[in-house]
């Protein structure tokens, strides 16, 4: 449609130039087939090319020669020619949308969809606005086939993984490129410590405000993204903000105000067993981690009060001295979670003034989490405009400012026996049922230290954690662009665009003294600054070669410079409780808690020259060829340059074959075929050796510092070259049965070879890793969108869409001297790349089984025997994913539901494993007095005869080898549901309001993972690895969130 607008615009310009030889004035009105006036329709005299455009009432006035023929066209309408004398009242027919739909492709170039030889999924603002989540990534979940979106946890502001068409690179990033208003936008994740320490760090696309987005186009395949070069290899999320969409003319100044309020609660908690309490072997063991203790009685048995346990506690809590404590069910965990509120305010102003279109907006999000201490606030301001300076020069630009502040208690990994470092959930989920978590004091009134039920006080009280320990991420970000477009001559446009994206990110990790982990307190701050300068010069040429052929050429150069630098300090040993300031800490360091450097700089630059040409034949056959050459600063000169070509064909049989025109059943059909290549460059500084240095590694007895230097364990590789990717894709787009049935089907096969691998070396080589080019990952997949409109009449409309995604990956060609690559998780429990296996299979320790029968082997102590080697224990990739979206509307009322189904996929769930091994859920609420005999065989293959207790059977084997934590993660979920009502325009006619709508909506309203232990209610859609290529591993990362609320939107 935009193309037509452009055409009419040009026509209008020419009309002005040629408007000298007039003799008569024609006045007319242009309306649609329902009689509504059409604004902005072009009215051009055929011969002289003189013309004008209609006003808001559809009225035009044009001076023409007598007997002139007028060509009248409007966006979305079929062109019509009428004699000037008959132009008093012209009605235009609505154009066939199938043929005129325009989408945004790479570099912001708009193309008719029918001309594209590849798949583009578009998500409009309707599906993005007024959502309960302020994270664009999560809002996109399920809305585009082939796009996989995963959450780290339900904590507000936690990281979101986006992977398009599968992970193509083993060690590189698989996150797509964000392009906002034509300029690359850093969506990276600046993690300060590994996932082990609680990596919920959000990606920086969190800084986008979904309410300020006009549209999102997802470019999935390489054919679509070649022009972006290596940055676009993982797909491109093309975001057009309302500020960046100012080329659209507006009727009048329009102000939109919306306000949403949601509740944020934990989606589902385990169902706890109410019969047994803490302990082992049915003892009254209140002070245990585990819940294998005595059966509850009525009246409750009593035990000495857990806070009456030593002199220190008695001094702090004299009220409990000599008191007893009821050993009974306290329903602690559900009470630990609160209801957070999410408030989202958005104001948008759009308007036109002469030759200037502008848009301004403001957004405020206050998202409070479901645990104390977790929240996200975000302020966004933005302004965009475009102005036509002369007839040939257009200037446009946007400027946005965001301030994001995310805070959360730490969530380090936990294997079900306290966490590696502080974790708010690490010990909460399996709290023994007789522990009154919310009723017991959590702070020592004398010291401010944490107190809890264990006599060693060795579980950090989670309530204390929420008040004394947190991670925080504050970002101030400014981004925008400026573009000048010059129309050299008809059909040839030159444009230059400079984009910048600069943010400073201030991250904190803090815990007051008095905890279990970091008992003396810890305080880490880091300040990072990321800066992108992106310059693009683009020439676009468009011409009709002859009456059959037309040609579009785009060529340009691009330079992108990315600089990141940060400094940081880690302090330990707090002096005065409560004050978080480095001066209040005794020792200081410049490495984070996992030993990684807090002080570093990184700068890289890439340059590209690209060209693309599309030949169109009679509006039904299109051939596109293109290519880009990129140069990077991260590789040595010999390997720095790479060229990647692309080609695609699109054919529209419904336009080409007369028999298919005006066909009853087939309304529109397009087949497409694409081939493209791309590359991946490594991160900087991996080709040249360095010396590892460290100061103050040790203080000797006399207090002298010991400094060190060491051979770096990571071997550099000067011969590194880019990763190479090639992709074929083929697809069909079609509309059938009077446009009721829509189909959008894509098949793809992407091969990534010369993978840039972090090869782990046997330390016996003297080194632990080296970067190499080797191995191949292929991803084959199917993306299908199928929609059917069941009901379509004046009042009712019901449409159901099904989005189906299937991806199969395979690793091959790893060199023969390399067994495997572990690229995510732990080295003995992680995601592996192994020849002949899907990428990401999980290896870990497994149960030893008898070769013949597959029965597990039981040791003489009555427990299953673990393997000595790690082996494949699961494949986290699901069989397929299916989203079903139903849209039902009746006049102004609409009801939307989005269901998602994930079939299969294995998962290591530390949460589930711990719940079962510790005996806290209803799953283990059985008669525990009976002896247990684990089914299996002894070392000689005879049936196991060693008796054991329920405690031992579940505890020892529930916490057995990693295989004991593997579950099938099949999942069905009601992702979104909303009910919206828009007041009829008639009602509003006499009010200042242009539109009023009211929406009730919710996300994650229900889910069920049928193959997990019934009462664990675990949500497999959590990722313990944070934003990474890893998947299917969870280390008590936190439950997911459910949000329900209402929104009101008023337009003036």
């Amino acid at each position, binding site marked *: 449609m935009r193309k037509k607008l452009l055409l009419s615009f040009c026509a209008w310009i020419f009309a002005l130039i040629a408007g000298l030889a007039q003799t008569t004035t024609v006045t007319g009105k242009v309306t649609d087939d329902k009689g509504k006036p059409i604004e902005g329709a072009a009215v051009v005299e055929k011969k002289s090319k003189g013309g004008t455009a209609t006003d808001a009432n559809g009225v035009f006035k044009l001076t023409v020669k007598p007997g002139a023929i007028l060509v009248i066209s409007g966006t979305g309408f079929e062109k019509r020619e009428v004699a000037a004398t008959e132009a008093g009242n012209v009605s235009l027919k609505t154009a066939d949308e199938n043929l005129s739909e325009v989408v945004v492709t790479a570099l912001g170039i708009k193309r008719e969809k029918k001309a594209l030889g590849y798949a583009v999924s578009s998500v409009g603002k309707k599906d993005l606005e007024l959502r309960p989540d302020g994270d664009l990534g999560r809002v996109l979940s399920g809305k585009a086939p082939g796009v996989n979106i995963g959450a780290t946890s339900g904590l507000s502001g936690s990281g979101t993984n986006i992977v398009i068409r599968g992970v193509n690179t083993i060690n590189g990033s698989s996150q797509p490129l964000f392009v906002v208003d034509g300029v690359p936008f850093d969506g990276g994740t600046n993690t300060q410590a590994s996932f082990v320490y609680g990596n919920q760090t959000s990606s920086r696309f969190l800084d986008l405000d979904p309410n300020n987005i006009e549209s999102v186009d997802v470019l999935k395949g390489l054919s679509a993204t070649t022009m972006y070069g290596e940055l676009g290899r993982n797909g491109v999320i093309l975001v057009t903000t309302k500020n960046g969409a100012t080329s659209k003319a507006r009727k009048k100044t329009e102000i939109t105000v919306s306000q949403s309020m949601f509740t944020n609660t934990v989606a589902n908690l385990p169902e706890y067993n109410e019969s047994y309490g803490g302990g082992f072997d049915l003892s009254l*063991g*209140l002070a245990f981690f585990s819940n294998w203790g005595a059966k509850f009685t009525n009246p409750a048995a009593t035990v000495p009060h857990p806070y009456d346990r030593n002199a220190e506690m008695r001094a702090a809590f004299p009220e409990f001295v000599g008191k007893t404590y009821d050993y009974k069910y306290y329903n602690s965990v559900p009470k630990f979670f609160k209801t957070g509120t999410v408030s989202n305010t958005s104001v948008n102003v759009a308007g036109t003034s002469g030759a200037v279109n502008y848009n301004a907006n403001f957004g405020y999000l206050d998202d409070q989490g479901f645990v104390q201490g977790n929240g996200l606030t975000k302020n966004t301001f933005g302004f965009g405009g475009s102005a036509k300076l002369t007839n040939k020069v257009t200037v446009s630009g946007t400027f946005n400012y965001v301030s994001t502040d995310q805070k959360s208690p730490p969530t380090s990994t936990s294997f079900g026996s306290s966490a590696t470092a502080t974790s708010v959930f690490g010990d909460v989920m399996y709290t023994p049922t007789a522990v009154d978590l919310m009723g017991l004091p959590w702070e020592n009134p004398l010291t401010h230290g944490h107190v809890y039920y264990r006599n060693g006080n060795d579980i950090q009280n989670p309530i204390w954690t929420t008040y004394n320990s947190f991670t925080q991420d504050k970002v101030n970000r400014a981004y925008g662009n400026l573009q000048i477009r010059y129309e050299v001559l008809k059909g040839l446009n*030159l444009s230059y665009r400079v984009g910048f994206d600069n943010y400073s990110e201030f991250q904190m990790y803090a815990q007051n003294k008095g905890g279990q982990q970091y008992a003396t307190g810890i305080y880490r701050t880091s300040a990072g600054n990321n800066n992108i300068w992106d310059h693009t010069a683009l020439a676009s040429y468009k011409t009709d070669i002859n009456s059959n052929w037309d040609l579009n050429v785009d060529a340009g150069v691009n330079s992108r410079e990315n600089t990141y630098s940060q400094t940081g300090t*880690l302090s330990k040993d707090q002096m005065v409780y409560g004050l978080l300031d480095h001066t209040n800490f005794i020792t200081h360091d410049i490495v984070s808690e996992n030993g990684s450097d807090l002080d570093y700089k990184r700068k890289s630059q890439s340059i590209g020259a690209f060209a693309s040409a599309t030949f169109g034949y009679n509006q039904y056959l299109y051939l596109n060829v293109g290519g880009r050459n990129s140069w990077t600063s991260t590789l040595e000169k010999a390997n720095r340059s790479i060229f990647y070509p692309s080609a695609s064909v699109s054919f529209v049989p419904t336009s080409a074959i007369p028999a298919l025109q005006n066909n009853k059943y087939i309304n529109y059909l397009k087949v497409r075929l694409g081939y493209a290549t791309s590359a991946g460059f490594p991160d900087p500084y991996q080709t040249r050796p*360095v010396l590892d240095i460290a100061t103050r590694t*040790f203080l000797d007895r006399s207090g002298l510092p010991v400094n060190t230097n060491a051979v770096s364990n990571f071997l550099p590789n000067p011969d590194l070259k880019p990763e190479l990717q090639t992709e074929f894709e083929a697809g069909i787009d079609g509309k059938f049965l009077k446009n009721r049935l829509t189909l959008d089907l894509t098949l793809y096969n992407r091969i990534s070879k010369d993978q840039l691998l972090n090869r782990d070396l046997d330390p016996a080589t003297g080194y632990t890793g080296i970067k190499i080019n080797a191995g191949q990952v292929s991803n084959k997949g199917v993306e299908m969108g199928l929609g059917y409109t069941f009901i379509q009449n004046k009042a009712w409309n019901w449409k159901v869409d099904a989005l189906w995604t299937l991806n199969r990956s395979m690793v091959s060609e790893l060199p023969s001297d390399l*067994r495997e690559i572990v690229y995510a998780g732990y080295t003995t429990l992680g995601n592996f790349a192994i020849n002949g296996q899907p990428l990401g299979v999980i290896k870990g320790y497994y149960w030893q089984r008898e070769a013949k029968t597959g029965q597990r082997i039981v040791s003489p102590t009555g*427990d299953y025997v*673990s393997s000595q080697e790690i082996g494949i224990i699961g494949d986290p990739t699901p069989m397929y994913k299916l989203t079903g979206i139903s849209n039902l509307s009746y006049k102004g009322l609409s009801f939307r539901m989005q269901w998602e189904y994930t079939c299969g996929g294995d998962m290591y769930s530390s949460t589930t494993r711990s719940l079962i091994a510790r005996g806290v859920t209803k799953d283990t609420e059985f008669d525990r007095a009976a002896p247990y005999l684990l089914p299996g065989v002894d070392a000689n293959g005879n049936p196991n005869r060693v008796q054991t207790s329920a405690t031992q059977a579940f505890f020892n084997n529930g916490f057995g080898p990693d295989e004991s934590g593997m579950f099938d993660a099949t999942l069905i979920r009601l992702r979104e549901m909303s009910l919206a009502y828009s007041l009829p325009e008639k009602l509003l006619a006499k009010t200042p309001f242009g539109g009023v709508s009211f929406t009730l909506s919710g996300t994650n309203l229900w889910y069920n993972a049928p193959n997990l232990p019934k009462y664990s209610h675990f949500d497999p859609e959590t990722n313990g690895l944070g934003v990474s290529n890893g998947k299917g591993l969870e280390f008590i990362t936190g439950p997911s969130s459910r949000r329900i609320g209402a929104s009101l939107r008023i337009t003036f």
Partner: protein
Amino acid sequence: MRYSKFFICLALLATTLGACNKKLDSLLDSPNAPSPATADVDLSLNQIQLSFRGFYGTASTLGAELSRQQSWFGPIYANGYSPGTFDGLWGTAYSSIFVNADQMIPVAQSQKKFVQSGIAKVLKAYTLGTLVDEFGDIPYTEAVQGAANTNPKIDKGADVYVKVLALLDDAIADFNKTGAGAAPTNDLFFGGSATNWRKAAKSLKLKFLMNTRLVDASASAKIAALITENDLVTTDAQDFNFKYGSNNSSPDSRHPKYAGNYNVNGQVGEYLSTYFMDLVVKEKTGTVSTLDPRRRYYFYRQNTNYANVNETTLTCAFVANPPHYPSTMPFCLVGGNSGYWGRDHGDNSGTPPDGAFRTTYGVYPAGGEFDASTGGVVKQVMGGRGAGVDPIWNSSFTYFVEAEAALKLGVTAGGTARALLSKALYASINKVVGFPASIGYSLSASQQALVPTTAQIDTYVNFVLAQYDAATTDDARLNIIMKEYYIAAWGNGVETYNSYRRTGKPDNIQLVVTTASPGVFLRSFTYPSVYMNRNLNAPTQKTPGVAANKVFWDNNPDNFIK
């Protein structure tokens, strides 16, 4: 005109791109780290020393667990350790100690920094020999070659031992070189004394030669020659000890056993072995006694009685002795109302809430608290504040090994076995008793009152010597020597694990508690997972608990020890 404009643009672009190449070159070097050419010998030596203490610490803990000084969870030998347990040991040895030593030694030689190169050789030799002691055959000749050989093949343990002894000889030669360059900036063992380093190197030769006595007939003569040379570690000041500081964070420079057990008030992290505590405080007299002068230095009791024992804190106190335990075998409690709180060998039951009750490391060698029978939970700042030592080779060890040589090989260059045993006992006890003062921990008056007198020390030595005299067979005599060595080697699980495999002593060692059939004792460790998973030339993984997997110097029968 239309086209000329276009070409002008293209020409401009081409020029710009050319200029860019230069800029891209300037971004190749990391601004975050210096170039390898700036490496400094002394700073490399520091890296090697600190990595070495890490290696030793891990090896010692594993050995102490298997030889029942510390608790071993077990519960059976097939399942006691996963191969991943040994990754750190392997990685520290090769990719931290060897790679840096190999880089640094030639540079040090060229700069005439012979003390530095000698130290690097000693530490490399100890590490290499210990790898053989723990794993058997290991990569050596093809190892530490980086990208040139990513799958180094394995060498026979015996062949590697030859290299170990040669490295020690090289080191001794370095220490003897005159006109050596400046002393190391930091020597965390001997403060830069080349003489002491030479004695340490020779003592390590003794240690490794002793290991080979069962399989190498020539060992006896070599040992005799070494002893005759009379240049071994024989005094407290010559002890080859890594000396820790007391800084508790940034950097934590405390003894790891202190840092792990005194870091949080009332939360001891590890269990000591019930057997070991029983051996020191009860075994000799049959009741809990004060006979061994070292017990207040070795162990610190948070509770000096068993008042906190109940069914949830120490379940084993409420069950009968395992049927497969002989009646004299220590089980669960040490006895009386003594408060010694540990764990039995192979007890893998869940951890009860007993962090404030467990007995933990005392002042020797971890730099903890002196046990003045007062009780009280551990605190972060206590006793020697962590300024302990790693007793890698003490003078008492020299005497014990000489005693073993006298008894088993007839090498009496250092004296009779009995005389050497006596020397060893005095060396051990005197070191321990003098230890608090040596680390700047001044005992309080009430603690001072409990420091053993010379008479008490004599009583102990005489008690052991009387036992020795009463013994009727060499095996019984060896048992006494090795048992005392075992006690004296507290803090050194490397030696206890070695001598247990070599001699099978002490002979009344505690059996695995969970089952009468725990499988074959681990005569070596399984190969680390980093080796098995990343090296295609790695041999087939051992089957722990089933096959004996003995190292080359261990020709004792498969069921020799349990």
